[in-house]
């Protein structure tokens, strides 16, 4: 063999090895980076962070102190300025005050014990030093917090029962009487009004009782302030916590996030409605897409003749998978919402027009649109699975006197069942993450009601719903202005990732079980 040639070949060999390994390294770091950022930021959202107390000088005035977290960095020129969350009073918590400090402005920075994070019922929080509690003018030890919170909870409950129960019904009665033209001084009206006034008085009484329960706080610059206990959800001291206690808080935050309603324009509270909406939409979509996709695939593999028309259809189906999802969204809006929904309204809900019932984006149209979007995925996966069923099995079935229908039902479908499952799960995973079409056909950033409730017909297909993907999308925009929103977004991202991973995991389990059962 020629020596220079062999040498060149060896170099080429090494070169390819090097470049391909480099490519793999880049891919690995990209994937790892995505995962690390989502998991890190997402979990950080739930972790009780240490509260810093910072002494700083602002231009021209005497030094001040604040309790806060670093919520972000700003790079202007060479100085690394840091954005501080500065939430040490109720007012500042409401306004989500932020403060930008450059390193020169900071005089000292330390972690004080006894500084608490106080989570409020509206989803915000503030940072301060609790001093003592007050109940009806008496000073109470901080250790009695849970007892007093229970006491206020009872009163709050009484109040909401009055407001949402009796007061509401009296208001409705009064309104109805006025509609019917009842005179303002008729005995019935007067009785109602008297009842109304006494109820208002009762409620005011309860409010006064609630005013009696307070927590007294000492802010960083030494000012005392009172906070009504009815606003307080929980108080904890991250600076004084052991790792185990922090873990418990972490766990609680996580559970609240998964189980609670959103608050405060999606910037705090939980994402339960979004999880619920996503899962319900995906389930409905599977109900629509599976029979349709599987039937179509059965026709294509088992019955369709081998001619040009069928080849074109098959090509069209696989190309449909490449159509951008936003196009499906536009189609769903134009066809399902306006055409089909509009016609349903004109036929069945004519009395409530011009208010649309089905002629508006909603759960039904969203799941139908997603079913359409995932149809090619299901058809292609099913077709592949059906084709993989050995011809010899079909022949033996025919040879035993089975017809084509019996062969498909008893042999082909069971043997291909793992592939059918794969197709459906792929569709679910795809549908769970789509945002663009969702925005057009029914998902909203905030839906006041879940699509399932105790009222007939229990499943409200016409309602709009919340969706994790849309939630993240909204969070990304709000996250630019508020750090809390950004944290929510990462946490929701992590959740979506987990949901998709769980779905894929279930798919793999189901598939391997079916594969074990039906061999081949």
């Amino acid at each position, binding site marked *: 063999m020629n020596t220079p040639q062999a040498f060149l070949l060896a170099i080429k060999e090494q070169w390819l090895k090097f470049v391909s390994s480099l490519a793999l390294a880049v891919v690995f770091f990209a994937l790892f980076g995505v995962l690390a950022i989502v998991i890190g930021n997402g979990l950080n959202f739930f972790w009780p962070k240490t509260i810093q107390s910072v002494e700083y000088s602002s231009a021209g005035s005497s030094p001040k102190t604040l309790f806060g977290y670093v919520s972000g960095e700003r790079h202007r020129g060479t100085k690394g300025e840091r954005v501080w969350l500065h939430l040490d009073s109720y007012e500042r918590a409401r306004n989500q005050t932020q403060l930008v400090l450059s390193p020169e402005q900071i005089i000292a920075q330390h972690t004080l014990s006894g500084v608490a994070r106080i989570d409020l019922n509206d989803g915000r929080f503030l940072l301060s030093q609790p001093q003592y509690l007050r109940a009806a003018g008496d000073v109470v030890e901080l250790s009695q917090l849970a007892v007093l919170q229970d006491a206020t909870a009872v009163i709050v409950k009484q109040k909401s029962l009055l407001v949402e129960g009796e007061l509401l019904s009296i208001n409705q009665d009064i309104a109805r009487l006025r509609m019917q033209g009842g005179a303002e001084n008729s005995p019935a009206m007067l009785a109602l009004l008297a009842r109304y006034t006494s109820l208002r008085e009762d409620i005011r009484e309860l409010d006064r009782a609630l005013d009696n329960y307070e927590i007294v706080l000492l802010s960083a610059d030494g000012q005392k302030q009172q906070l009504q206990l009815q606003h307080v959800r929980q108080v904890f001291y991250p600076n004084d916590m052991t790792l185990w206690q922090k873990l418990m808080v972490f766990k609680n935050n996580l559970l609240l996030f998964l189980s609670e309603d959103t608050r405060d324009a999606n910037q705090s509270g939980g994402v339960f409605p979004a999880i619920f909406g996503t899962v319900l939409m995906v389930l409905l979509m599977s109900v629509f897409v599976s029979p349709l996709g599987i039937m179509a695939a059965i026709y294509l593999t088992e019955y369709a*003749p081998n001619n040009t028309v069928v080849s074109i259809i098959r090509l069209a189906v696989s190309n449909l998978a490449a159509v951008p999802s936003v196009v499906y969204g536009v189609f769903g809006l134009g066809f399902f919402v306006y055409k089909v929904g509009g016609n349903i309204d004109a036929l069945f809900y004519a009395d409530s027009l011009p208010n649309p019932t089905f002629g508006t984006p909603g759960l039904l149209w969203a799941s139908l649109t997603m079913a359409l979007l995932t149809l090619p995925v299901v058809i292609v996966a099913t077709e592949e699975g059906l084709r993989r069923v*050995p011809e*010899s*099995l*079909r*022949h*033996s*079935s*025919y*040879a*035993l*006197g*089975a*017809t084509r229908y*019996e062969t498909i039902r*008893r*042999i082909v479908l*069971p*043997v291909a069942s793992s592939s059918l499952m794969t197709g459906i799960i792929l569709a679910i995973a795809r549908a769970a993450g789509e945002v663009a079409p969702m925005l057009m056909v029914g998902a909203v950033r905030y839906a006041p009601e879940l699509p399932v409730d105790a009222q007939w017909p229990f499943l409200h297909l016409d309602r709009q719903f919340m969706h994790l993907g849309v939630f993240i999308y909204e969070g990304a925009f709000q996250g630019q202005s508020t750090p809390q929103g950004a944290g929510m977004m990462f946490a929701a991202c992590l959740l979506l990732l987990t949901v998709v991973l769980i779905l894929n995991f279930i798919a793999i389990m189901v598939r391997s079980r079916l594969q074990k*059962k*039906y*061999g*081949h």
Partner: protein
Amino acid sequence: MFTDKGLNGVATDNIAIKVEDLSLRFGDKFALRDISLAIPANSITAVIGPSGCGKSTLIGCFNRLNDLNPEAKVSGKVYINDRNIYGLRQNIPALRTQVGMVFQQPNPFPISVYENVVYGLRIKGITDRRILDDIVESSLMQAALWDEVKDILFQSALKLSGGQQQRLVIARALALQPEILMLDEPTSALDPISTLMIEELIYKLKEKCTIIVVTHNLQQAARVSEQTVFLNKGDLIEYSLTDRMFTMPLHKQTEAFITGRFG
């Protein structure tokens, strides 16, 4: 109707399958050309010939399994029970329950042993558990498999060995009590011991039904069959008693094939 190639001592009284001028084309290509023969009932007939000569295609005509290939065009007549199965309005699924078939690769369905055996019966609509149980036992007994699987009837059939699977497939065909059982190279994927078991089984089964064995193995044909069909390139070259064909073949091609000079 028989040509001079046929009737070399083959009995003509009790006929199970009578074939008249059977031709089969895949598109323009002839796979079988003007085949005529009569297969006696309750006997074993071997079909031999080089690869691609139409052996499997021929038996595929007896249960119309060739119909599954849309390219296949058949002409001629095949009489089973005095009825031309290529005539008008034939019930093909019913025909296939009369004419059982076993394939080269053991291919039990990926369900339990029991369900494999009763597959054809369930298709027929038999649901009575006692009848099914009885047939499972008798079919597996006939296929000499009962003792090996009676404790694992409800386990997947795919757990059985190759030889057991092939006997299970035979039991599956026997469950329908077919008049004719066709085996397409039933032992070519099996080891010598399993092969011997299947051959013994075939020999016993001839009391119950007419058996046709397609085989590549000339010794096997000589061992088990009473008469042998020799096909070459879609033509029926010779059809005679097995003893006669292997001792004094009438045709040069037959002689060349059985002495191993081609094929």
